[in-house]
């Protein structure tokens, strides 16, 4: 079994708040990230696919194809957007890094789990000092 990882970046704005909580509770929970006008990050996403190496073409997955899926399903809809206002489901799901990574997983896995290989992990850097890893 071999893992292959492709990295991509997108820049987006967001804020974190749960509409069922009071402004004070949101501020206590999310700190500065709760500001309703939003703020931005240069997100970095690393997508890892795991499988056997094909004996003919010597690959777990064609990186061109992985790049194209990532671009179409994630980068194009997320890049230079205000996640809470423009990218469902973040109009109703708080765009914490955990929830963004889970959404990226949800968007990618149907396109990657085939021919014996499967999506293994989505790592999302919100800043160089904070990242999450989602394993489905």
């Amino acid at each position, binding site marked *: 079994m071999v893992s292959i990882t492709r990295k991509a970046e997108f820049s987006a704005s967001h804020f*974190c708040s749960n509409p*069922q909580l009071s402004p004070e509770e949101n501020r206590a929970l999310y700190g500065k990230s709760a500001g309703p006008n939003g703020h931005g990050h240069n997100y970095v996403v690393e997508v890892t696919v795991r499988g056997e190496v094909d004996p003919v073409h010597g690959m777990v997955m064609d990186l061109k194809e992985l790049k194209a899926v990532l671009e179409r399903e994630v980068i194009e809809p997320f890049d230079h957007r205000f996640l809470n206002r423009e990218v469902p489901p973040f109009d109703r*799901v*708080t765009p914490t890094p*955990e929830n963004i*990574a889970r959404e990226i997983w949800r968007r990618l896995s149907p396109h990657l789990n085939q021919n014996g290989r499967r999506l293994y992990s989505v790592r999302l850097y919100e800043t160089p000092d*904070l990242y*999450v*890893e989602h*394993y489905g």
Partner: protein
Amino acid sequence: MTCLTRRYPFSASHRLHTDRLSAADNARLFGKCNNPYGHGHNYCLEVTVGGEIDPRTGMVVSPAALDAHVRRTVLERLDHSNLNTDLPEFATLVPTTENLGLEIGRWLRRDWPQICRIRLEETGSNSIEIEFHEP
């Protein structure tokens, strides 16, 4: 299952030396790291907490709470310290990156057993990783 990781830089000095070996053996084993007056590094510690995403908060763990815990248990002890002389743990134990990682893991997990992994970079080129349990 989701893991959240935060990175924390700190700076410290150390010397790799053990009284169980001769001066010549220490010099052979540890090389420049055995120079008698010690030397320093910009370390970087990664701390990982794993679990399910809380549906109320959308988080596995509050980064602010994790920061406070790491600051109190690790950074206040280690940042701008001399590991050999300022930390009783290293009075006899060699402060290699491996041993430092094991000590940091003990400090961190005493109150927070949900910490499932740490990674410690001694320099940009050297790092160790300890997995305490499956996330």
